[in-house]
């Protein structure tokens, strides 16, 4: 424990004078008039696609997506599009062949197209980065304006994993050319459900 004590002591001795912590309660960014429209625009800007739909049409929309992607192996925890038996996979590595992952989103952020997902109900969270394509299903009632509101509403799983996912995996590491599909999903479709 020597290092711990040394570091904490050095930091305490070096402490700057007190500085107040700003109050962030109720803080919001600039309001969007139509959250769903802004969210759709934001998802497109980050290279994803947003589909506005309702409960009744969702199964059909999901099937249509799977078909258009020619997805044979589907890993899903959204009941409207059942997939392979995920519980049969003891280790995450065997999910490497999944074509399409379908997950519920708990929140959708209008300012940047991000969707909050967690590992709840998911045995292997690797699924959503391993799958070639990603579909996220979020009720339109779970739209928030910006990240301030998102962090006010989101319940971080403790212990657990949660992630704001905004569009498909991408890189611009070669000459600043944007390439979609770095390590994770090659496409990201968000279903905003009425």
């Amino acid at each position: 424990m020597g290092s711990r004590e040394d570091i904490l002591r050095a930091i305490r001795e070096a402490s700057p004078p007190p500085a107040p912590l700003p109050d962030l309660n109720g803080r919001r960014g600039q309001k969007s008039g139509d959250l769903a429209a802004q969210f759709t625009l934001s998802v497109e800007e980050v290279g994803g696609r947003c589909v506005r739909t309702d409960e009744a049409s969702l199964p059909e929309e999901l099937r249509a997506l799977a078909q258009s992607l020619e997805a044979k192996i589907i890993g899903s925890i959204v009941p409207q599009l059942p997939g392979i038996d995920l519980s049969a996979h003891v280790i995450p590595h065997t999910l490497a062949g999944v074509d399409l992952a379908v997950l519920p989103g708990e929140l959708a952020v209008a300012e940047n197209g991000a969707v909050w997902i967690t590992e709840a109900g998911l045995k292997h969270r690797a699924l959503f980065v391993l799958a070639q394509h990603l579909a996220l299903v979020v009720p339109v009632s779970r739209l928030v304006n910006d990240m301030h509101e998102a962090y006010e509403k989101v319940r971080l799983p403790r212990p657990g994993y949660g992630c704001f996912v905004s569009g498909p995996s991408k890189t611009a590491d070669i000459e600043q050319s944007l390439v979609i599909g770095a390590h994770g999903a090659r496409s990201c479709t968000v279903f905003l459900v009425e």
Partner: protein
Amino acid sequence: MNEHAQNATVFLRDEARSAWHDNAVWWVRQKRDRAQHSVPEWEELRSLAQRIKAHALSRLADYLEEFERNARALGAHVHWARNADEHNRIVHGILRDHGVQRLVKSKSMLTEECHLNPYLIERGIEVVDTDLGERIVQLLREPPSHIVMPAIHLKKEDIGELFHVQLGTPKGVSDPKALTEAARHHLRSKFLAAQAGLTGVNFAIAETGGLVVCTNEGNADLGVALPPLHIACMGVEKIVPRQQDLGVFLRLLARSATGQSITTYSAHFHGPRPGGELHIVIVDHGRSKLLARSEFRRSLSCIRCGACLNTCPVYRRSGGHSYGVTVPGPIGSVLAPSIDAEKHAALPFASSLCGSCTDVCPVRIDLHHQLLAWRGEIAAQGLLPPDKSIGARVGRIVLSHTWLYRMVGSLARFALRVLPRGILYSRLNAWGLSRELPVPPAKSFRAQWRARGKP
């Protein structure tokens, strides 16, 4: 001539390439500007970020203890390292205890700073950087030249040739899409074979004991979702007090870095995966010393967005490698001398003091003031090279004696008129090496003022 200037001279020899680098980096700065203008409350966000960081630094030890307590309650192991060497030993110890031979890493400037990769490789562990840019420079055996875009100094043809040799892509292929696809396949096999994943940390939340890691590629998420062992390395300054503070920082980070509204993946880790282990290594490595220095401690607020690099006229024209440190650019030139002032004495001079870095910094670090303060500090420690120290001494004498100032002025006007170019633009005049000197006026300003009948 100092080391940075020497390296920059070499970089600038290839004019077409250095102009291309300048433009490539400036383009990112312009994307940042567009992102900034889409957020009307931008300046307010910067002020909030600055104040949150100032507060966190004022109570850093308390917050670190709170973070440690909460992280432990979630099942994480927390380690403390005074310096780079201790950090490397701890990480190696964890890997050794778990019998790990294959490690995948996402981007971590801290581990670059500690030179963790060579340390582990020497001890027989395969270390694979999984960020595409980092993998490229790793295969080239080069350090990153930028903290956000590690391979920004390379052209696609360079990378095409590298991948041809190392990954077996067809010769002559330099399309970024094809090269990225090849890297995806190559790195997938590394991810699937890895026995442990190591990540950096963008933010550590004191009140929850959680870690936030931001990437665009998804390599951090994938790297720690497959193997059961996750090691996260963080500097002590990464602490934010509350969950809601992230709302401020995540709105600023990606917009400042690349002009995106948010990174593709903003992962929040609280404790280990079921059945797995999470080890958090908290590193000081000079940070507590920096905290003790009131004039420089604000540099600890840095969130490593790279905006000050992208805007810096010196960085853009000299390239990241010319700095010879892990973090180049204005922020690196402030941080490096705090670790070793003698070794990095040239870096605070690698700036025009134009202040653009300060203007773009999302946490309002007064970078150009700190660069100037470091110059004073370096002079006071007697670390100035002779050309600078003699020049400064002569300047002080001339500027503090009116008669001498006048005399030198008329001498200079005379000399500029009569001396041949061969002497004026010789090696003796560093200022003339790449500049045309001004045409001297016939009379001094003072004389002209008098002639107009002014007192």
